[in-house]
């Protein structure tokens, strides 16, 4: 069963065409990676899926529902969550407050103004639970701007998970991380996405091959190949497209 699929997506920026007839299929429960050389259109496709852009042509379906023109907040309510490539946490708020916003949203506490949020026990408990899962409980109450880069990335992923999405989309979650940090991040992502569907864009092939069940390769705006990590590793076309960029 496909949880997400796109139907003939085309996209152009002021005449510059970046996507041609992309039919992406993501099965329920799988960890799906989108890879490709620079300029292949990965980020554009990602932004179309997550509601930042509207495609020039084609449709996006999530759980058989047309979400082509849906706004980000509507997608979240349908059960999608996303992280950002450029760290996009609330820098003046603490990790606790960052995650709590996600929890509030998940529980539908969106316009409540008659109770103090600090007094909402269930919310606090659930927030703390997530903080522990992303190893940020120790830094619960310091501003996010004071966290290390790696910790901020964890928070970023934690926020994507806080709304308890069925489909998590991660935009280069390990960008800019050291080897050790990357290894920890991969572990964290593996743990957090247990039993969920995940779509990930990633440059680091080690991360891709250790996380993904299935891979879609984009090149020059078109889907070049879809398959298991093993199949992609052996695919001659993919190797050619990367022209040695990827050591497979």
């Amino acid at each position, binding site marked *: 069963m496909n949880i997400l699929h796109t139907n003939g997506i085309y996209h152009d920026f002021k005449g510059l065409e970046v996507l041609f007839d992309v039919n992406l299929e993501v099965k329920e429960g799988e960890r799906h990676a989108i890879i490709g050389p620079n300029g292949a259109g990965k980020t554009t496709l990602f932004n179309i899926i997550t509601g930042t852009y509207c495609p020039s042509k084609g449709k996006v379906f999530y759980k058989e529902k047309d979400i082509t023109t849906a706004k980000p907040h509507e997608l979240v309510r349908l059960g999608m969550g996303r992280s950002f490539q450029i760290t*996009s946490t609330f820098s003046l708020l603490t990790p606790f407050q960052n995650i709590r916003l996600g929890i509030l949203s998940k529980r539908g506490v969106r316009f409540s103004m008659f109770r103090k949020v600090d007094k909402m026990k269930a919310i606090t408990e659930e927030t703390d639970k997530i903080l522990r899962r992303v190893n940020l409980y120790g830094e619960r109450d310091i501003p996010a701007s004071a966290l290390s880069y790696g910790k901020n990335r964890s928070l970023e992923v934690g926020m994507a998970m806080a709304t308890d999405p069925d489909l998590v989309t991660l935009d280069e979650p390990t960008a800019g991380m050291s080897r050790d940090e990357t290894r920890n991040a991969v572990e964290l992502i593996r743990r957090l996405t247990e039993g969920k569907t995940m779509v990930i864009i990633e440059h680091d092939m080690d991360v891709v091959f250790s996380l993904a069940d299935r891979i879609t390769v984009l090149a020059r705006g078109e889907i070049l190949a879809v398959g298991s990590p093993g199949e992609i590793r052996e695919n001659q076309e993919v190797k050619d497209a990367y022209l040695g960029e990827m050591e497979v």
Partner: protein
Amino acid sequence: MMNKTTKWILWIVILAVVISFPKIFGIYYTNVFVLFAIFALYSLTLNLLLGFTGLLSFGHALFFGGGAYATAIALTRIDGLPLLPAILIGGLTAAVFALITSPLLVRVSGTAFAMLTLAFGQLMYVFCLKFRDITGGEDGVGGFPIPPFHIPGVVSIDMTDPANFYYFALAVLGVSAWILWFFTKTPLGSVMVGIRDNAQRVDYLGFKVPHTKAIIFLISGGFAGIAGAIYALLQDLVSTDGVLTIGTSFMPIITTIVGGIGSFAGPIYGAAILIILDEIITTYTERVELVTGVVFILVIMYAPMGFAGFLGVIKQKWLSRSFARTKMEGAS
């Protein structure tokens, strides 16, 4: 951290001073205090946008003046209108103005937001100036009856007595300020701070940013209207030059910056500082705003967190010193 006992003592002292104020300082300063409380609430409502939501409004006089005019006109036109409904009319009218302008305001931020609010503020100014049948034009609306605070069969207090009005106004303004403070502590209040830091992310967490902003405008505008209503009652006169000029819109920005943009109480400090400054300067020169302007510039340049930030630094220093002392005592 301040411990509980000191906090209680502080509150009791403040309360005692506030209660005995009219007896000690006389009518003139009693009215000055009411003016301070009005400006403090008005500034708090602006800071809800500026400090908490990250939106700089150049047209907040629309709400303050709107509330003042609504209350004044209602008291002029409706015979026997009681006190509290009159104030409520001011607040609700301002909230309605916020509601009407919000579909446009929620779409923009930054400089465009500032300019759009400026345009709305100016529109209101021009309307009130031109539609003299209702608003009295340049002369404004004045000399309307100030109803007593009346609960049938229980009590009826004359509000033309400055001391009585002082207690009444302070109660209304104090409760309003408390509601605003409470609002910042609610879930919606935390979403508001999220919008300030990163509106896009708030959207991606599943919140409707425009709707949330609209509610914030409604609350900010409504309470600014209540501040305006009390102002109308205090002055018994409302005019375009008094409550609708750009100066009226800039005033709470200045108090908020001087008092401290980063804290809830900052605008209250700022209003106090400006009122005191005003009282001192007027004894020397007519050019009060020259000094205010210079102070404002200096604060932006050298103390961007304002008076509240300054207090924070003092507190920190005091804390670290007492901390060092306990440490030394422990070592010896």
